[in-house]
């Protein structure tokens, strides 16, 4: 255990050093994320205003709060491995990872978390600035803030494992862009990014409850907006735990098969 702690602290430290080298790229990524939130926020605020101040129970202030929280949730849970793995396999940098006495997922967890911690330094002030500018409406009870701790953590973990497992498709084919596109389109639609799920047709809402995306983004966002009852939160937590278990199992299976395939065909 002390060995793993040492590994993580060393990886964190060196990953931070790497990310400092890419300050400009990082800022551009963050600007992209903020612009995305601003676009959705502006569109839906305009729609609300044109409809007499409300759409489906969402006021302009509700939309502002929704997209500010959604932006933070997106930031805290996102990963880039579905693009990274293709590069690793194509460039041959995956092979050395296999020959080290450490499962590559540890490196990726450390890298992802160090990136998040570093960028929060920029994202948090941005969030407060947006709160000042757009006058969002928060009706968040204190219990919901506490409940958000495990919910956000589970959202991060389940998204991490789902995307890491899907990233392993690169071990079969290095043309993964198409599969990635399908995944991200589904994520945009069913996670509540494009529009709050409450505004979506009934069938989208039913389907989104069965898919993992809602539990990654919409659920923690709605919780932090104070839109969920305690029993809904418990149901959501249960869904997250189930999806985490499924993602974990899928990841283990895909990993062992993918590596076997990779070691059969080489790189």
């Amino acid at each position, binding site marked *: 255990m002390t*060995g793993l702690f*040492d*590994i993580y*602290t*060393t*990886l964190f*430290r*060196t990953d931070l*050093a*790497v990310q400092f*080298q*890419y300050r400009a790229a990082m800022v551009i990524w963050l600007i992209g994320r903020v612009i995305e939130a601003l676009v959705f926020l502006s569109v839906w605020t305009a729609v609300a205003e044109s409809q007499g101040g409300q759409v489906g129970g969402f006021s302009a202030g509700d939309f502002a709060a929704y997209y500010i929280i959604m932006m933070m949730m997106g930031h805290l849970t996102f990963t880039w491995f579905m693009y990274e793995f293709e590069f690793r396999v194509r460039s*041959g*940098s995956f*092979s*050395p990872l*296999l*020959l*080290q*006495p*450490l499962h590559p997922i540890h490196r990726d967890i450390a890298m992802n978390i160090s990136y998040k911690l570093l960028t929060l330094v920029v994202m948090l002030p941005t969030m407060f600035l947006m709160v000042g500018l757009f006058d969002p409406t928060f009706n968040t009870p204190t219990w919901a803030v506490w409940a958000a701790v495990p919910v956000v953590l589970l959202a991060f973990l389940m998204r991490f494992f789902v995307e890491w497992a899907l990233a392993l498709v690169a071990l079969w084919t290095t043309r993964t862009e198409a599969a990635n596109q399908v995944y991200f389109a589904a994520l945009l639609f069913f996670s509540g990014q494009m529009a709050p799920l409450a505004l979506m047709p009934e069938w989208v809402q039913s389907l989104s409850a069965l898919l993992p995306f809602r539990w990654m983004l919409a659920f923690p966002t709605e919780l932090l907006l104070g839109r969920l009852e305690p029993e809904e939160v418990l149901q959501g937590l249960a869904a997250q735990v189930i999806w985490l278990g499924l993602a974990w199992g899928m990841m283990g299976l895909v990993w062992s098969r993918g590596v*076997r395939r990779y*070691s*059969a*065909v*080489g790189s």
Partner: protein
Amino acid sequence: MSAVPAIAVRDLSKTYEVPVREGGLAAALKSLVHRQTRQVEAVKEINFEVAPGEIVGFLGPNGAGKTTTLKMLSGLLYPSGGQCRVLGFEPFKRQRDYLRQITLVMGNRNQLIWDIPVLDSFERNRAIYRIERTAYQRTVDELTELLDLGPLLDKPVRNLSLGERMKCEVAAALLHKPQILFLDEPTIGLDVTMQRRIRSFLAEYNQRYGATVLLTSHYMADVEALCKRVVVIHHGQLLFDGQLSELVQRFSPHKTIVVELENEGSDLSVYGEVVDGVDGRVSLRVPKAETAQVTGRLLSEQAVLDLTVEDPPIEDVIEQVFAGV
């Protein structure tokens, strides 16, 4: 050969399935419906053993199956047939205890992180290989001294020259003091001085830690300097396994007589094939069996200032080996 070999390879084979497609749009469309593949036998039932502490040169032209074999031995590739054991482990299982005792250095691949100082990459390996801190520091000091890394350690990898980077790559790969070194073209692209440096370092490492080394290189100087024994493969098959000197004996039917005469410009083509003539020194290639007789004739018939009999350069011998297949 020692009772327990460090590396034991029995009937080891690797067959790849590769897609076959002719050029052009029609062939591309056809391959959508009917995908054709063919089997390529990269390695065919090869056998050899390497004793602990031995340095063996693994030779063969491009595509001979050298890298495939090294990948199977290190655990990256799953063999299609036969078996290999390294330090008693089955490499493809990639058990941690196994991975902690081996290293694979590929001259054309980088493991160091591009953006951060070399020492930070070393630190990552220290943690990943769970090297105890004092032992780690001692190893870094030793490697720094042996490879003259002092001025490089705090530089970002992207600011290093190819040779400097390679020295650091080799050091990073050895921090955990592996017992088995798989080296695939470790000196590729380096200048002569740097090649020599890496070479003498590898010899020193082998002496100091008794490590077993399996090395591929296209630079025969590497092989001559480091390996008494060579294993030669071609088209995936083992052609030769023995002492380097024996390889020369077996595969070179010629010797080279280098002779310096008082009267420059004499025609020596009657004695053998003149292959070189610089500054009054003439190199003659003669059949091995006739060497003694030709030497005698030269000495009695010509005013000889100096005469030496040499084996042909190892590159020529290797060329002979592959030409004969």
